[in-house]
């Protein structure tokens, strides 16, 4: 070997090595200025509230949309050195779980008294670590065109879903994968009693053509005429309707459960004051109005906030007194899901 060859080698390896050094260090994270928020609702709404907050306070918000499970997984993975300040939106269950694991911070808002009772109950359950910002009721979505074509009347009650016309025509998510479907499972247990609920689900299984993985997927399938009926959160169905699909939603007559969309401040945030300001904004009528502005039709939690006309009227829906305390715990969840696996999943095709 000659030294010239060696120098070329040095240069070659050096370039590779320098490449790795540059990759490691040259691109700095941006300074800890803006508030980092994980957002659990639809992207338009995320963007709208970020812009509204920035206009009001002058603080920039870096917003990232994550499904509830992804957000929880990320916050948990980051817990040693949190990079997120606020977790805004998404079903209350995972927020409760985060509170139970001590990933979020207790904080009492001066606007607390203005909130609906269900929003306050989320606060109490989480020991002050989370509070409700909107509610969405569980219900059915169905394809009106297909129903008319087959001359089937729309389902109005849980019991209707067992009708033979709906054989292989119903979709619901797998409760192991989706929080929506777990809410449905827990609701049925509370409406029909545990054994009654599993009897019902066994019969329903004949009518279910697919246990989807995402909670809102049945709504999309109904919109595209892939199935007749879906069990979803009603605002997901209304969303499809607004997008121009021939669908409509209904709330089950026996009573239904609901999710409490929540907001939590992450423990260990480096921007606590800004995080609190965002939390307050999210609870204010002004902040909650951003939902309706972007065609999101959940019920706002602040009694002073305007209710969008498209929103399902919570008074017209027979809401059960959903026991979040019991069904939100990890043990109960595990027990019900194992029973679902053993009795429903095992007989599924």
């Amino acid at each position, binding site marked *: 070997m000659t*030294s010239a*060859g060696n120098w070329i080698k040095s240069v070659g*390896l050096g370039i590779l090595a320098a490449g790795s050094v540059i990759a490691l260090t040259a691109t700095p994270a941006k300074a800890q200025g803006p508030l980092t928020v994980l957002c659990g609702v*639809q*992207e338009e709404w995320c963007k709208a509230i970020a812009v509204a907050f920035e206009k009001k306070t002058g603080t920039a918000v870096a917003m990232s949309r994550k499904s509830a499970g992804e957000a929880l997984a990320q916050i948990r993975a980051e817990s040693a050195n949190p990079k997120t300040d606020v977790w805004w939106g998404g079903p209350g269950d995972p927020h409760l*779980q985060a509170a139970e694991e001590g990933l979020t911070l207790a904080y009492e808002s001066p606007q607390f008294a203005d909130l609906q009772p269900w929003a306050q109950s989320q606060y109490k359950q989480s020991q002050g670590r989370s509070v409700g910002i909107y509610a969405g009721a569980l219900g059915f979505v169905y394809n009106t065109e297909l129903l008319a074509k087959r001359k089937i009347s729309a389902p109005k009650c849980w019991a209707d879903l067992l009708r033979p016309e709906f054989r292989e025509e119903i979709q619901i998510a797998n409760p192991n994968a*989706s929080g929506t479907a777990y809410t449905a499972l827990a609701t049925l247990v509370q409406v029909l009693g545990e054994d009654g609920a599993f009897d019902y689900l066994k019969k329903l299984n004949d009518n279910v053509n697919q*246990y989807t993985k995402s909670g809102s997927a049945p709504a999309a399938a109904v919109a595209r005429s892939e199935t007749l009926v879906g069990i979803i959160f009603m605002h997901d169905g209304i969303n499809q309707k607004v997008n121009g699909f021939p669908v409509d939603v209904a709330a089950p007559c026996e009573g239904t459960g609901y999710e409490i969309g929540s907001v939590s401040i992450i423990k260990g945030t480096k921007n606590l004051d800004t995080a609190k300001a965002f939390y307050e904004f999210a609870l204010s009528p002004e902040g909650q109005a951003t939902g309706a502005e972007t065609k999101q039709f959940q019920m706002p939690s602040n009694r002073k906030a305007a209710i969008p006309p498209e929103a399902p009227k919570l008074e017209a829906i027979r809401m059960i007194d959903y026991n979040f305390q019991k069904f939100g715990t990890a043990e109960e969840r595990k027990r019900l899901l194992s029973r679902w696996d053993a009795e429903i999943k095992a007989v*599924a095709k």
Partner: protein
Amino acid sequence: MPGPQKFAGDVMRPRSAVWLALGWVGFALLPWFAGSGTQPTLAPPSPGPAGSALIDGLTNGRWWLLPAALPLILALVATALPRLHARQPAILLASGAFGLAWTAAQGFAIGLNGWAWGWLGALFGPLPLGQGGFGAGAALTALSFLFLMTNGFAGLGFMKGDRFTAGAIGLVLAAIAAFVFLPVGYVLSGAGDTGTGAFSAAALWSRLAAPDIWRLSCLTEAKACGVVWNSVFLAVMTGIATTLLGLAFALVAVRTGFRAKKLLRVLTVLPIITPPFVISLAVILLFGRNGTVTLVLADWFGIPVSRWIYGLPGVLLTQTLAFTPISFLVMIGVVQGIGPSLEEAAQTLRASRWVTFRTVTWPLMRPGVANAFLISFIESLADFGNPLILGGNFEVLSTKIYFAVVGAQNDPGRAAALGIILLCMCLGAFWVQRQWLGKKSYATVGGKGDNGIPSQLPRGIKIAAYATALPWAAFTFVLYGLILFGGFTENWGRNNSLTLRHYLAAFDLSWGPGGLIWSGRAWGSLFTTIEVAALSAPLTAAVGLLTAYLLVRQRFKGQGAFEFLTMLSFAIPGTVIGISYILAFNQPPIELTGTVTILIVCFVFRNMPVSIRAGVAAMSQIDRSLDECSLTLGAGSVQTIRRVILPLLRPAIVASLVYSFVRAITSISAVIFLVSPKYELATAYIVGRVEQGDFGLAIAYSSALIVLMSVVIALIQLLVGERRIGRRTATPVTLQEKPV
């Protein structure tokens, strides 16, 4: 080459001296900690040279940084004092190893707030200070230690004393250790977690042996089988289908007189540049219960409408669509490289075309077939998007792992156990591939110009190739026509009136007082995506081809294990990689979350295996005698790579550049946890649109990406160029039989 051959030790010193000097620069002049990540609140390090390990260690109380000077001093003494030259390699090896070990150990042991592990605190008492993540100084110093160590190894006679090879192996191994092993280890170590942080073998066993993973009830009764059987069955089917299709396309493109070869190539590359859910969506619109094809079949032939597409058939179809191009890219390099003179020899010896194909051409194509199958098999195992949308009740490992992490059950331990099973399956596939290929030689590109004429394919094979490739190409064409059309419709599948509004929403431009305003909603994510893809593609190709060179051209102990390690990151579903990257790189010593670097690193190590496979397949065809010839003529291994191997590797370079660029744009699952609000990627944005039901914008954006990627692929082809092998073309030869 000027100058006489020198004594090995003499050449060694200047080279080691360069690394040694860089080590000192990193230790004494550059800031040791990253300036940007989280910094400890107590005694934060100063910026610039004052924050170097030497000064910070002396003045700021971080005494644990100082021992890193020891190996630097030792190596300096060994290099500078002539007396020690005979022992220099051993000293370099020892000091490099010690320096590396110390840097890593102190980095992991001392976190932001003192001891990172409780037992150290119990042993030594509490530590008042903490430290931040590694910065430029630490990275350079560690690199210098690494190369001092490999130089030491080479000096002691390992790798025939070739320091480049030793250094390259060291670099690849260190990179894999840091960016594959470390994160994956974090996740998999949770497999035996009982939920309280304690390890229990019983918990591990009960997770690994769960009946829903292994049951075989689908054979005996009408129930679903365990996920492992589902995954294996799907992966084998996908592997076979994509390999056959890839082979058919390669044969049609290289060995037949097919006219529209260019078009064929474009069509086969289309699926690879499409975000996966777009294909799934198009397939639903064609074959779903309300799909165009379904309705036509029902109307014309009375075939009952069903949901057959949801489940195994749909996933198999979309995976085959998505992975055939990769298999084609691997196969075409191999088919092109087969030396025609061997086939000519066979025909001269009166072998029929069929016998020639069976005994000469086919055996020579085996590395391509094996590598294409392995890639498709593993891709199918790790694929997440298609089973998610089209899986129905058909469960596979990758979706099961995803929902074990993010689903309602929320059991990371279960995800880890499933991840271990998935890894073992990939290991198994890898082992089978090695057994099948054996230790035979597949070299056909030798030093002697091969003046043969590629023989015509036997008739049966040719018909089969056409019959497979052409309908598939037509199908792809229809699908893409639909997708492009979908972007221009008001509401695809529902209201097909034409509109430009989706494109305007995504890519609007307007003039403001300050000049051009990028007012469309997609611009931000598009620019980040292009930046990340453009940065990661060349790095991926470089690391991948270097590794391929080490695997094919060098022989060293533990090569099989080394090869498997390089495949690891590919075999793990993207979501798991994403979570593992947060776990590993969110806190010191390596703190990368929230930066664009973590995206680039993730893409490089995730896409590297394809680059390696393409390189290995192409390189095993190039006869070693070419390297030896170059080495005999006095070139070093770097010059040989640059002047001989690289030009012959052009198809492999194109494949790996294209693949890594495209994957950086289209992959979603790995980065879903890594995108930060600041660095949003196109696919993450598109998936958000799909979830919202806003298919118009999603499809418009995807179409724009497809066009963009086609342009880039064409540019890469143009820049890298075709490989020129001494082959005559069949055209001027009139004696050649006319193809039937």
